[in-house]
């Protein structure tokens, strides 16, 4: 779907990205993580040609992007940035409809699409369609920013630290929603962040960059269990590695079906990390498990969490 092939970007004497090769398959949620100045945003912007590589080649759907007209390429790719960048003089509807407007959609179709996307992102369409960005909280603005990037139903979504300016609670809500949207739509997402918890939560694969170079690209579990270098080990965090590992698994995977335990049940979809947290807080070594509707499924034991 997306392939960066031996890509290098220099600004004068400074090399920002060096010999980066990374392939992102269709339907993959690829997170690029690194410290500030690692070149991750630059790498992302080479995909939609906001930045041109000094060397190497970037392909989207097998086509070399340097041969495609930039505007046409970008209309095929959703783009979300940390500073959101909603047009302040346009209503929410018109902001969401920016790319559809470029593609020549009718006003009615744009409005219907905007309402659909607002509902998807948990904003009441009737209350928000005709508001201006300054009337929205930052979290609501970024929801509209994501709706704008999804408006033309592009296959590819590029997100450049989209949740960096949000408070922790808003951020968690949006992380859950973008994960759900990606799961249900099978879009290809490339997501830049410097937050390892965010990367582990969202990524089906995580690419670690350090000073312009790709250090390791691997699924979350492999990144935690087989870090390629001390840099990756530090980034992952040595002290709470175990807790992070538990964060990758769900209660459903360690379920003792049919067992019955008293007490408030935990959802089968919750992470093992949440289960451990509940056990420690409640001073018990087993929890009842229920499905999303609250029907009892069985139990999970502390010993089950220790299995690898």
């Amino acid at each position, binding site marked *: 779907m997306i392939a960066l092939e031996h890509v290098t970007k220099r600004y004068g004497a400074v090399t920002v990205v060096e010999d980066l090769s990374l392939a992102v398959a269709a339907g993959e949620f690829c997170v690029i993580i690194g410290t500030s100045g690692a070149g991750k945003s630059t790498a992302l912007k080479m995909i939609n040609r906001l930045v041109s590589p000094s060397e190497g080649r970037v392909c989207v759907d097998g086509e070399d992007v340097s041969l495609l007209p930039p505007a046409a390429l970008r209309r095929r790719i959703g*783009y979300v940035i940390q*500073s959101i960048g909603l047009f302040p003089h346009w209503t929410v509807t018109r902001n969401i409809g920016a790319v559809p407007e470029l593609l020549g959609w009718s006003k009615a179709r744009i409005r219907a699409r905007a309402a659909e996307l607002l509902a998807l992102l948990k904003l009441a369409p009737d209350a928000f369609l005709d508001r201006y960005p300054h009337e929205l909280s930052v979290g609501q603005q970024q929801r509209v920013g994501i709706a704008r990037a999804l408006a033309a139903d592009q296959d590819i979504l590029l997100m450049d630290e989209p949740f960096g300016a949000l408070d922790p609670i808003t951020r968690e809500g949006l992380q859950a929603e973008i994960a759900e949207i990606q799961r249900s739509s099978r879009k290809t997402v490339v997501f830049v962040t410097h937050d390892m918890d965010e990367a582990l939560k969202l990524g089906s694969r995580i690419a670690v960059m350090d000073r312009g170079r790709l250090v390791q690209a691997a699924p979350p579990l492999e990144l935690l269990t087989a870090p390629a270098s001390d840099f990756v080990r530090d980034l992952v965090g040595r002290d709470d590695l175990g807790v992070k590992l538990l964060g990758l698994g769900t209660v459903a995977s360690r379920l003792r079906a049919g067992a019955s335990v008293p007490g408030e049940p935990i959802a089968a979809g919750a992470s093992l990390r949440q289960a451990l947290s509940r056990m420690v807080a409640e001073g018990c070594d087993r929890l009842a498990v229920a499905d999303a509707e609250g029907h009892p499924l069985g139990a999970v034991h502390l010993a089950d969490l220790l299995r690898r």
Partner: protein
Amino acid sequence: MSARLRDPLLWTSFALAGLVLLLPQSKPLFAALFPDLDRPLFELDGFAMLLAGHLLLVGASSGAAILLGLAAGIFVTRPAGVEFRGPVETIVAIGQTFPPVAVLAVAVPVIGFGFDPAFIALLLYGLLPIVETTIAGVSGVPAALREAAHGMGMSEAAILRKLELPLALPVILAGIRTSVIINVGTATVASTVGARTLGLPIIIGLNGANLAYILQGAVPVALLAIVLDLAFARLLASTRPWRYSMPNN
């Protein structure tokens, strides 16, 4: 209804129209106020004609200044025109340093008396605020918005038309307002070279020490400036239902 009646734009406009229509009938009043004057009322030309001439001169010169100023301001904020930004700003600033009277004095021997030299002097004089505010307004558009626009595949022309100019409009309108109001006052000077404006009674009144003439020119000009200023304030308020509000900007 009562709110509309208290609208200052409405009643200053009525006051200006009423003044221009009633002045020709006001000879007894001015005769009583200035008993020493042989001719207490300016009668060489109709006040309505002078107001029309004044508006025509201001409208034509400001219209040309707006077109030229916008074009220059937009050009130097494009990637292709960036190198011209310094020179353009300097030239425009020089245009405003020359007093209009000096421009008139230079222009008359070249193109003669009448409307044309006045038009040129006012055009040059009104250019600076428009060019400056166009540059300030367009380059004041936050980089994040430009990045978002590029990222979604808007062309440079679309970014100018849909993003930069609408966002810069309140700032540009403020520049146009300044330029037009200055020109309303400066257009009175144009009567020294034979342009028919409300400056004519003022100039003749100054020459002949006729205070009545000066008042009959100066009061309508002042009212006209107030009316136009209020109209611009109204226009400015209507262009901006939005505000900037973004993280990290």
